[in-house]
């Protein structure tokens, strides 16, 4: 501070009124709207000189304290004082919205023009300061809105949680004037620190840790934070990150700053922090849905590949057998299925026919179909069709499949020259043999499904196919095809259809069966895989 001017330089101040020249000087200083300190300082100098003060300072109200605005004289004044307990050697003379602090304490204010002018100027300065503070707060609300908008955009623009976590934490810390912060994400049943700022934070907390759970739901400010959440922080605010009440993490900030140090967070800050927690929840949910979509896409790719593999497993056509017509068809309920059929011409001229049905549908069933296909081809070459073949196949499937998985199987072997058909039925639907005479024979089961029980025994049976006889192997997807009224297609409808079309080309018969089940279902979804193999001896 500069030394006070001598009374001689402001003679008219003696009687309390500025002289003409001083008035002009003050008027010039007052024109500077951007900075009123020079005006206040000069006025204070005149006031101090007129009142015999060695030094004087103008303080304005700032909360419960008085804050130094300007000073005059050869003395330093503290930045803040408490009017109730002024520093030694100073007198506090109250003004509306502030105070004059003078040294020596004997100086006193008087009701004269200079004091009134200083009072008015101090009042104006205080109003200006308050307006500026309000302007600052209004602008800062704008910063808050922009921050939430920006975070929203960032959440929409990226699925990478790493930068998003940092963005959300930094914005929350800065907007709440916090010194510290941490963002925790739930992994399994533990919250783990994903991002920290401004100091140490506990690395992890149990989801059900009582102190943390109580602290996260407390809105009264009465609950204490876990001591290791933000160690050393005097004031902590935390809110949960949740999606439909399901916890996903939490956001914590510590030590609210002001110009005088740190303090507790006011109630409104919980709402602001909650808005950032909501953004974090949206980001987490987006990332989870994206991972889910990627996983679904991957599974669909795998299913498409599996369907292609299964198409390769199933016969691409039927072998030509002199004196017979043979066709096969399969329609899976899903992309891949659990039904299987095969038509195998053997080296000795015999032909093997297979229809199988794995329990369940979809990928697990398709994998078992693949296992069955490989085992069946290998064993058939080594063993030939018979009980031993099925018993070995049973052991193999039992060892290589889950406990609740089994396969019903109908195996037949035709000797084309004689029309002799050997067959084994392991728990499968009875094959239908429509004689030319119109009689229908059912080739029923001779053992339990394979893969169900160890040591299962099977029996080979034999029938003769005469000219015009039609054999139909099928899976339960045909007979159990359901109408919207939940009535099953049933064996009788299948027999009737076969009987009506028995002399038509076999492909026409297959198409008719396929169409009949679709028509019967009348739009109801196909619940099971459908398979048909037809063999007819030329008449």
């Amino acid at each position, binding site marked *: 501070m500069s030394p006070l001017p001598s009374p001689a330089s402001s003679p008219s101040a003696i009687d309390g009124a500025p002289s003409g020249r001083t008035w002009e000087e003050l008027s010039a200083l007052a024109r500077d709207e951007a*900075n009123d300190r020079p005006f206040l300082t000069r006025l204070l100098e005149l006031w101090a000189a007129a009142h015999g003060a060695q030094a004087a300072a103008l303080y304005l109200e700032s909360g419960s304290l008085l804050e130094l605005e300007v000073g005059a004289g050869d003395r330093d004044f503290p930045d803040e004082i408490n009017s109730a307990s002024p520093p030694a050697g100073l007198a506090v003379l109250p003004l509306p919205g502030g105070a004059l602090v003078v040294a020596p304490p004997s100086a006193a204010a008087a009701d004269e023009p200079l004091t009134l002018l200083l009072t008015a100027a101090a009042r104006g300065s205080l109003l200006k300061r308050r307006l500026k503070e309000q302007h*600052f707060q209004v602008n800062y609300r704008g*910063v808050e809105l922009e921050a939430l908008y920006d975070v929203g955009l960032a959440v929409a623009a990226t699925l990478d949680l790493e930068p998003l976590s940092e963005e959300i934490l*930094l914005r929350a810390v*800065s907007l709440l*004037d916090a010194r510290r912060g941490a963002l925790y994400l739930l992994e399994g049943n533990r919250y783990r620190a994903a991002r*920290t*700022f401004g*100091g140490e934070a506990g690395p992890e907390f149990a989801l059900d840790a009582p102190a943390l759970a109580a602290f996260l739901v407390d809105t009264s400010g009465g609950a204490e934070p876990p001591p290791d959440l933000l160690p050393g922080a005097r004031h902590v605010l935390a809110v949960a990150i949740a999606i439909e009440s399901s916890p996903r993490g939490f956001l914590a900030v510590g030590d609210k*700053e002001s110009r005088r140090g740190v303090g507790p967070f006011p109630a409104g800050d919980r709402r602001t922090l909650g808005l950032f927690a909501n953004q974090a929840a949206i980001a987490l949910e987006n990332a989870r849905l994206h991972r889910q979509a990627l996983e679904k896409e991957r599974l669909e790719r795998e299913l498409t590949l599996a369907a292609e593999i299964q198409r390769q497993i199933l016969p691409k056509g039927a072998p030509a057998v002199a004196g017979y017509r043979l066709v096969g068809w399969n329609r899976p309920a899903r992309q891949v299925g659990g039904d299987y059929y095969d038509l195998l011409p053997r080296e000795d001229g015999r032909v093997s026919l297979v229809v199988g049905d794995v329990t369940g549908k979809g990928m697990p069933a398709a994998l078992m179909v693949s296992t069955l296909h490989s085992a069946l081809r290998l064993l058939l070459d080594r063993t030939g069709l018979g009980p031993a073949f099925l018993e070995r196949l049973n052991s193999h499937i039992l060892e290589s499949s889950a406990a609740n998985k089994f396969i019903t199987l109908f195996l037949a072997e035709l000797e084309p020259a004689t029309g002799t058909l050997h067959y084994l039925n392991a728990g499968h639907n009875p094959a239908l043999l429509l004689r030319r005479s119109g009689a229908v024979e059912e080739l029923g089961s001779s053992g339990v499904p394979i893969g169900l029980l160890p040591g299962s025994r099977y029996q080979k049976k034999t029938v003769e196919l005469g000219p015009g006889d039609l054999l139909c192997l099928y899976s339960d997807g045909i007979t159990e095809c359901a109408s919207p009224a939940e009535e099953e297609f049933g064996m009788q409808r299948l027999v009737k259809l076969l009987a009506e079309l028995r002399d038509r080309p076999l492909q026409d018969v297959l198409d008719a069966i396929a169409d009949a089940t679709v028509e019967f279902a009348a739009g109801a979804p196909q619940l099971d895989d459908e398979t048909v193999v037809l063999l007819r001896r030329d008449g």
Partner: protein
Amino acid sequence: MTESLNVTVDRREGLAVVYTEGYINNQGGEEIARVAYKLLDEGYKVLLLNLAGTKIVNSIGISILIEIIEKMIEIGGRLGFCCLTPTIEKTFHIMGLAQYARIFPDEPAAVAGLQS
């Protein structure tokens, strides 16, 4: 990330560049103000605040920066900022700092702009 702000100064002919690294909060802002006022006492009237090392600033830090700007205006000096993150630049515009202090994308542009 650091809690405290590191401030370094590069004194040049007619201009001083103040580099910050860390959080501009109450403590960080006070440190910048201390350094800036010291430079004013040394006679520097043109200051450049390079905030390349700062990712976060709070309202207390902003209010202190505003005080520094006011002080610069009071003495007829000039203050510029450079190398701000997009977030801080947007904040400075909303808070009105950009009306009284120039903002430059990088240091060479700032030095040229403030000395012209």
